[in-house]
């Protein structure tokens, strides 16, 4: 009873804070800085480098939004959040947007009163096994010992998968990814399961990454995307369409290399509208006409951002997979710029 009263008060206070900060676009412009919530550190997605400069896939999205709104990709105050503090930081107005590999789920969208503005990475739970085991499919894992992080959705997904395939497994409960890595290498379990991007990043740190394979089965949907507070639709639109601009730029062949040339005007009217040489899309968002061009210049289009941070050339070595353009058989599909 007492708990619900306190939570209720917290919710009301949160809503009041949310309502007070309704004009986030204006707030950000007045402040001259975007407060962007990121993780405290996840390989490839967000981490400060040796010079303290934030780098990563999620970080690039923050920079693109800052470039679109303020014209300066470095005008971002990165606020590191943990899995426990991220939602309160957003709800209380401490941050303007959260780009922190957060899975888009019904309850987060509806019950926690947030608005997901798209998906920037389609993840899913996968399996890693030593090559020497000779397994090629997760369905052959009958009787295997599985390292699994306790208290996560991965635990439930795993139970569902094995039950529906009518095979058995023995869980080895572990607390953190670091522990999992040590246990798996020490042979305490045959299989390690977590998000596929996390598996790839973990494998990249092994001494002999080639001795381990990721199985083709992906047993859950984890659409990761940026989110903003409920009820501030102008700001939500800015974040949503900045992400869409990055995706469309790749589809339309606009890269950081040729953007200056294309910004001078092209034969393709959609490119022109995207880059602001035609139409009034920027004005509708309440931004400069060339907001899209600035966002793309910040770190390149979606494909470039992917390649520099987590793509196959990097130590993490993720393939595009589901995150390819819809024209290449992936799920990336930006609504038209019209």
């Amino acid at each position, binding site marked *: 009873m007492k708990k619900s009263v306190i939570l209720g008060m917290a919710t009301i206070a949160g809503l009041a804070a949310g309502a*007070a900060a309704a004009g986030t676009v204006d707030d950000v412009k007045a402040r001259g800085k975007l407060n962007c919530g990121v993780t405290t550190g996840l390989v490839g997605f967000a*981490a400060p480098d*040796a010079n303290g400069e934030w780098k990563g896939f999620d970080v690039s999205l923050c920079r693109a939004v800052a470039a679109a709104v303020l014209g300066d990709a470095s005008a971002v105050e990165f606020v590191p959040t*943990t899995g426990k503090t991220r939602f309160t930081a957003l709800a*209380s107005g401490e941050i303007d947007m959260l780009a922190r590999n957060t899975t888009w789920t019904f309850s987060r969208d509806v019950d926690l009163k947030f608005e997901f503005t798209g998906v920037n990475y389609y993840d899913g739970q996968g399996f890693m096994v030593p090559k020497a085991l000779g397994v090629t499919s997760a369905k052959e894992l009958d009787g295997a010992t599985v390292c699994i992080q306790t208290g996560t959705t991965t635990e439930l997904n795993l139970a569902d998968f094995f039950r529906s395939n009518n095979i058995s497994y023995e869980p080895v409960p572990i607390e953190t990814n*670091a522990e999992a*890595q040590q246990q798996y290498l020490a042979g305490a379990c045959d299989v390690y399961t977590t998000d596929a991007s996390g598996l790839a990043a973990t494998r990249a740190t092994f001494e002999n990454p080639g001795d381990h394979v990721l199985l083709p089965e992906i047993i859950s949907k984890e659409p990761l995307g940026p989110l903003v507070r409920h009820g501030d639709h102008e700001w939500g639109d800015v974040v949503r369409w900045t992400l869409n601009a990055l995706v469309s730029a790749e589809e339309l062949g606009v890269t950081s290399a040729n953007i200056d040339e294309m910004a001078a005007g092209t034969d393709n009217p959609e490119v022109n509208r995207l880059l602001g040489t035609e139409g009034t899309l920027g004005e509708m968002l309440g931004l400069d006409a060339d907001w899209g061009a600035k966002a793309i210049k910040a770190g390149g289009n979606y494909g470039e951002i992917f390649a520099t941070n987590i793509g196959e050339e*990097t*130590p993490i070595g993720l393939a595009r997979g589901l995150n390819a353009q819809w024209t290449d058989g992936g799920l990336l599909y930006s609504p038209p710029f019209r």
Partner: protein
Amino acid sequence: MADQTTNPIAFVADGTIPPSPPPANQTGAVKWLRENLFSGVSNTILTVLSLILIYVLLKNTMPWILNGVWNANSLAECREILAGKTGACFAVLTERWPQLIYGFKYPVDAYWRPNLAFVLMLVAIAPVLFFDLPRKLLIITALYPFVAFWLIWGGTILVPIVALVGCVAAGAVFQKFGKNSFAAGFFGAIIVALVVWKLGGALIPEGASDGAWLSAVPSRDLGGFMLNMMLGLACVSLSVPLGIALALGRQSNMPLIKWVCVIFIEFIRGVPLITLLFVASVMLSYFFPPDSTVDLFLRVVIMITMFSAAYIAEVIRGGLAALPRGQYEAADSLGLDYPQAMRLIILPQALKISIPGIVNVAVGLFKDTTLVSVISMFDLVGMIRGPILASTEWNGVYWELLGFAALLFFVVCYGISQYSQWLERRLATDHH
């Protein structure tokens, strides 16, 4: 003289016989070994087993440490240099050294400021720890918090000056009125301090920190072991006086003060520290408007101080309870009033008894400062778990980093514990 040489007695010793060395098995290392390590069958077995254990430990760790790579830019490069041999990758410590100590956002050209603050800390803390030093040095100690604040956070020098003036004014008021009535002095001092701070705060112009000689560093940019040291030092030095006040308050005859202290202590002791930290970082941000929150560092300091003050209060209460009733009565019979009795008779004895307990709390508190990593502050452990392990270069280096963190904490905590043992010996006045 010539007569003596023809003395009929055949032999007279003209000096003492030099002492012979003791038998070989009754001296030196052999004796020590026999007495301490091989004095019986069971002891011999234990000794041999321990030696085997030490050998196995060293055999496994020494190659790892001695082969360690100190110069590389990533874990992959380390492994290339090692070429399959076992060896540590200490290169992460050299490459990320500034981040481990100062956090990743503290401006590089300002590293001298925390360094200087650290050196000054040693000077300022010396007269408190070693009371044989001249008492005049305590002036440095009193000024140190303001200097350190100015050095580490930078910005306009007016802020620490206003804070200092407020404290001095409060002290003066307490001196003047506290002699007659403790309450008048105490509350008068608080009111004067608040008034000075309010007026001074209004006098400092907006944006005074912009062009300051020391560039302003926001609290969010602090990190690394520096943050642990700052939190540990601030919280210990604040919680000891607060703990003493709470312990005395709990023994007070005045019901209001007594119950306030009892409820405070019991409530804080009944709540986990991590809960208080979450309240500090998460809940409070709901109750303040987004633009005007209390500084996160300050919020954390308040929470940790409250937590450890409650524990220290209970430790000191143990010391007070251990004093025989006669000591209190002796103080009364000398005609001392309450503050005098406490200051001159009761507390010196009670605190001496409480030293091991207080040090125990202080060491625990210092280690507890690593808990701030869960509310996304980048202390030493937060730096390791977050940015460093999440960089593509160093993902997967665990033993070296966490071992280094353990070593740093061990050095500080062992130092504290050695100091407390010295203090106990120094204060021992009973004769055995």
